[in-house]
């Protein structure tokens, strides 16, 4: 709780200085945000700060090369993916505690994607991007650990800047309040609900699955997914709120994902910035070259699974989501689908679809977030035993 207090205090102070710099001096303003972000990350994790800063410079050099040569413009951004693989495989960013370690590793994945998006956006719009902009995109501290994945559009002149400053600060404080509710209060309620079933471990997702029957494991799985959502959505609300202090419009990342009634609808509600990235940067290019939508969507999600973390659990996550989307694309609108829908009560069908969707996405998320493969398999085994 004290960490969020520090973050809010530093952002209030930093944004006050930011607003004291005249609006016309855009480069100075962006430079200030980049420097502030760098020092905040440096205080948390020095290696991460330097690695992120170096990647920002690297992306900027790629951008400059791309402006002179079309081949660099087209293929240069792929070298960022190679950089991401180095970060994923090498233990250079291992922190002392597992949570901090995960935070930093995910941060690396997110900012590499942001830089990739920044390069692609700049190339597509043929716009000039300055060094300090790359630094802000890479390092802006509220979105550093876990997104949303956004590039120039979030930091360029937005509607938020045209509003009165007080409105932005009040809106920001409201968003932070929602974030605190989701990030700190919801887990308290969830742990209270789950107390009769399990003893919570200090590390998220570490549960003794072997000691549970199928029904209990199913309930815990749903609660853990709800916990993941509260954590991620709460964090995003705080990032949006802190961004508003500077007049940046960080995009929304969630739209009530627990209301999704099919897997396609789920991806229109869950992690919207990643969903947009998958569609525009992976699915559409694959689709253009392969001309096969089902294969393209399957490959795109398998790749995104590996982007999260290079392990079997996340491969299962990616392949699982890809397979579900392919199955949905095949089944939806088919004669079998029409025949079932015409016979079954519409509300019952929607309820069953909702239950199946939430159960499947919860299973894949909890499976992927287990600390190792043996724990993930124990979780899967506990779900099918002793109902």
């Amino acid at each position, binding site marked *: *709780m*004290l960490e*969020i*207090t520090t973050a809010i205090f530093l952002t209030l102070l930093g944004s006050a200085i930011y607003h004291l710099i005249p609006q016309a001096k855009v480069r100075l303003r962006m430079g200030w945000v980049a420097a502030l972000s760098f020092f905040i990350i440096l205080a948390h994790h020095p290696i991460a700060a330097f690695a992120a800063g170096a990647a920002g410079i690297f992306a900027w050099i790629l951008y400059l090369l791309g402006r002179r040569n079309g081949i660099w413009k087209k293929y240069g951004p792929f070298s960022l993916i190679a950089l991401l693989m180095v970060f994923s495989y090498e233990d250079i960013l291992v922190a002392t505690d597992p949570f901090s370690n995960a935070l930093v590793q995910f941060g690396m994945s997110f900012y590499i994607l942001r830089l990739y998006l920044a390069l692609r956006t700049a190339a597509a719009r043929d716009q000039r991007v300055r060094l300090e902009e790359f630094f802000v995109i890479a390092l802006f501290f509220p979105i550093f650990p876990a997104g949303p994945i956004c590039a120039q559009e979030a930091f360029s002149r937005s509607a938020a800047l045209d*509003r009165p400053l007080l*409105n932005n600060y009040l*809106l920001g*404080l*409201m*968003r*932070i*309040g*929602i*974030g*605190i*509710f*989701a990030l*700190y*209060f919801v887990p308290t309620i969830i742990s209270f609900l789950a107390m009769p079933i399990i003893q919570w471990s200090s590390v998220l997702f570490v549960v003794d699955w072997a000691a549970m029957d199928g029904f209990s494991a199913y309930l815990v799985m749903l609660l853990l997914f709800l916990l993941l959502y509260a954590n991620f959505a709460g964090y995003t609300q705080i990032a949006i709120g802190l961004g508003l202090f500077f007049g940046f419009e960080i995009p929304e990342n969630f739209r009530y994902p627990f209301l999704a009634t099919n897997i396609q609808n789920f991806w229109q509600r869950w992690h919207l910035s990643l969903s947009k990235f998958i569609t525009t940067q992976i699915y559409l290019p694959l689709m253009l070259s392969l001309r096969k939508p089902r294969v393209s969507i399957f490959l795109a999600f398998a790749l995104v699974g590996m982007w999260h973390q290079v392990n079997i659990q996340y491969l299962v996550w990616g392949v699982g989501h890809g397979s579900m989307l392919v199955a949905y694309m095949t089944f939806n609108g088919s004669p079998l689908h029409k025949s079932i829908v015409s016979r079954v009560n519409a509300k019952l069908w929607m309820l069953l679809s909702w239950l199946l969707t939430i159960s499947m996405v919860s299973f894949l998320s909890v499976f992927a977030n287990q600390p190792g493969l043996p724990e993930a398999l124990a979780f899967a085994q506990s779900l099918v035993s002793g109902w």
Partner: protein
Amino acid sequence: MIKMKIRALAELCHVSDKEAFLYLLLSAAGWTYFVHQYLYSTGLGIAVPKYASY
């Protein structure tokens, strides 16, 4: 008056009136929890029954 304020908030956030009201409620709950926890964790909470459980 309150309805108009909520409508203005809804327009700023690009959401429906109901969602804007929900935002306000959740935010108020979040900040209340924050103040309670902050006072509790820093020992500043005169009104918080810190040792009530003993």
